């Protein structure tokens, strides 16, 4: 491909784009929507992943003691255990006070003090690392005098399965949209080919190479795909930045902290740009293929 071929391709490609401006715009729009959904889904996945990790690392094991067991014995065993990073003892009197605070109505607990306290004594235990939480909880359950040891595995399990199904759903949706977008590109480019059918026919008799004939159409498709993706990434980027800032200001809870690390965010946007451009290119190649046979 030399300079004059390049010039020819550029001129023809942009002429076609101008001729089909509306269809090209709609096609770019659909690409933008499908890639924005895909990108939104990827951002969500990155954030949920980080959230799960945060929850896991912050998990505490609540160790409930049987009635009348000496906390000192349990305390000794916890100190000796290799996986334990630290622990605090919460006697049932303090547990009742904390419970009352959570409810916000001390009167509700009237008559439950002293002998009538229904709560057990408990230890809050932290593991060395997130991976050890499950193993440590199991080990502690085996201590004599321990009623049970929980660390919210149901919550984590439910989060993981919700994320799993959400992933499937969003991935399927963006896949379908992307397929529709490629189909639209094929249609758009085919219109351009038909508009220039005389020219394409003559070119073959004049000895033009297939790549020469294809180039303007390829360019058209790539420009459409790229425009769509650019719109998607800009919209998504601005939207995400807004959301991230407002979430940080609200400081909801310690674990909803949006991912802002560029090393995790930029590959997503880069991947989207590449994907949109590829979609445009593949669409036009499919479209031109059958016109190139001689």
């Amino acid at each position, binding site marked *: 491909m030399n300079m004059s*071929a390049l010039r*020819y391709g550029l001129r023809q490609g942009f002429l076609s784009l101008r001729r089909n401006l509306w269809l090209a715009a709609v096609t770019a729009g659909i690409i933008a929507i499908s890639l924005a959904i895909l990108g939104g889904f990827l951002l969500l996945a990155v954030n949920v992943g980080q959230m799960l990790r945060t929850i896991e690392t912050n998990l505490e094991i609540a160790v409930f003691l049987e009635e009348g067991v000496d906390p000192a014995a349990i305390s000794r065993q916890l100190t000796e255990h290799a996986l334990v990073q630290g622990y605090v003892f919460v006697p049932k009197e303090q547990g009742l006070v904390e419970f009352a605070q959570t409810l916000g109505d001390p009167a509700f607990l009237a008559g439950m003090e002293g002998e009538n306290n229904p709560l057990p004594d408990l230890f809050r235990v932290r593991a060395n690392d997130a991976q050890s939480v499950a193993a440590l909880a199991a080990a502690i359950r085996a201590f004599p005098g321990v009623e049970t040891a929980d660390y919210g595995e149901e919550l984590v399990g439910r989060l993981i399965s919700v994320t799993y199904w959400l992933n499937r759903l969003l991935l399927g949706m963006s896949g379908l949209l992307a397929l529709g977008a490629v189909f639209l590109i094929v249609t758009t480019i085919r219109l351009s080919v038909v508009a220039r059918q005389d*020219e394409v026919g*003559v*070119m073959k*008799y*004049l*000895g*033009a190479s297939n790549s020469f004939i294809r180039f303007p159409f390829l360019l058209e498709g790539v420009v459409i795909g790229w425009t769509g993706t650019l719109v998607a990434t800009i919209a998504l980027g601005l939207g995400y930045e807004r959301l991230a800032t407002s979430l940080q200001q609200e400081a909801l809870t310690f674990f909803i902290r949006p991912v802002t690390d560029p090393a995790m965010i930029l590959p997503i946007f880069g991947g989207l740009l590449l994907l949109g451009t590829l979609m445009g290119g593949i669409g036009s190649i499919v479209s031109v293929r059958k016109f190139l046979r001689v």
Partner: protein
Amino acid sequence: MRGELTLIELKRVSKSYNNCAQPAVANLSLQVNRGEFVFLVGPSGAGKSTLIKLVFREQTPSSGQITFEGRDLSRLKQKELLRHRRRIGMVFQDYRLLKQKTVYENVAFALEVIGRPAKEIRRKVPAALAEVGLTGKEKAFPAELSGGEQQRVGIARAIVKDPLIVLADEPTGNLDRNNALQLMELFETINRSGTTVIIATHAWDLVDRMKKRVVAMENGCLIRDEQRGSYGNEHVST
């Protein structure tokens, strides 16, 4: 120096479309030398267009072999095929000009699409237009020209890249006798500068007048091949 002289050689070439019982070209052998002027004549359906398409390698033979400058056309790789086609100037009955392009642009297009540099285009297009007698019509669009003038543009487009051979399929089929005669003389001029010319045509009176080699076909077969020949007796009497 055998290879020097022979440009095209067909050896027992047959071509059937689909699985049609009657082949469009049947067991045809023919040799065309460099610099020759050949009329290809015969009734409609005789296989003239198919023969031209075989030489351009738009079609490939069902059996037999076609060589161009000694090279088997069935074995050309993609690159060689392009090179082959770029050495052939095609002229069509319906001109096949691009109506949204001017005369100049139509001729320049032939060089653009094979990637020739702009400088060469600026030099060669006016020369080709001068050769076909269209100097001054550069800015006209095809619709503003007569049929004869349009075909001249088609011929300029074919010769602008200095082809080895010009293949013309019924080039005067849509023109009156006067225009046809002038075009045949133009082809003769082109031939005189060394370019091989093959013209498939129905125009028997012109063929008779030109006294060139005549290859006659019927039902896909070669039925006559004469130097300085005529179209055939059946037409002379009408």
